[in-house]
């Protein structure tokens, strides 16, 4: 499944980094501790978080993630959105909270 297909299936908002929408989604990871993501998240995953600091994009790029999804309609800080464009890693937004969103994505990917 591509990021674009996930966006359509779950009615996600593409906030930034639309040029990366055709990346493949290899799985998901949920964490708000960036140190944890840096240590434990595998490449190709989508990352669900509520952190909106630009370090999110640095770590998404370092770990070669396919996209970042912000929950509860959160929006990235401006420099995070900018970095998402540069890195071509989409930042998506969902009105759902983490538990519900992760459940739906799990169903789609399993």
């Amino acid at each position, binding site marked *: 499944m591509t990021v674009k297909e996930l966006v359509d299936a779950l009615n996600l908002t593409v906030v930034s980094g639309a040029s990366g929408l055709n990346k493949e989604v290899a799985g998901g990871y949920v964490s*708000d*501790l*960036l*140190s944890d*993501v*840096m240590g434990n998240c595998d490449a190709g995953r989508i990352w669900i978080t509520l*952190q*909106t*600091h*630009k*370090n999110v994009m*640095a*770590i998404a790029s370092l770990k070669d993630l396919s996209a970042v999804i912000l929950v509860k309609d959160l929006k990235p*800080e401006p420099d995070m959105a900018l970095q998402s464009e540069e890195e071509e890693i989409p930042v998506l937004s969902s009105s759902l909270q983490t538990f519900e969103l992760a459940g739906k994505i799990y169903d789609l990917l399993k």
Partner: protein
Amino acid sequence: MVFRADLHIHTVLSPCGDLSMSPEAIIETALARNLQIIGITDHNSTLQAPLIAQIAAEKGLAVYCGAEITTREETHCLSYMPDIDSLGRLQDYIESHLLRIPNNIDKFGYQLVVDRDENIVLEYPWLLISAIDQGIDQVAAFVHSLGGLFIPAHVTRPMYSLVSQLGFIPPDLNADALELSKHTSNIAFANGLGRKNKLPVIRSSDAHFVVDIGQNFSEFEMESPSFDEFKMVLKAIGGRRIVS
């Protein structure tokens, strides 16, 4: 002259601060442990600091007043203010952004402002260990707009630190120094972080109990223990420096 400073001390106002952390006890212990400067940094509140500064001044102990602010990312950041007026404005800023979660005394502990005789003058209603709705860069900018100092706390701690919450220290973070508290096990690693980010590193106790005060400290080469001198120490101006 070299001055010994422990710039991260909690009081009875912090819910996790021991009830014995009264102004008198903090000052007497600091003096007994040969500290010349202390910092009063309760979680998300400045309200106990002015009284401590006032009493300490009578005894020749310098106090830098501030707070340990929990940013939106849940990083703990020490914020010190140059005077009582800016301290009041910091308090207003924190209160206008603090999540209004009622404190549960049984679970979290008392949040008390006391007077000189340890009478309770205020029981702060909102939980002080929650976060404020402001990102780390916004807090740094606000603190600097008032001439204050912004120092991320216990930067290598596995919880509530820059490193735990944000993975690494943002290269363009507008901080005046990094702090290492007694939680830090790997001092070489933390000093490396400071060098890599071109930031000075200070040490303090993060005392929540009287016994902790001065267990970890920094020594500064400076002309007097004033706040302006401390600013110059962090910038290494005119021979002023962090000795340890």
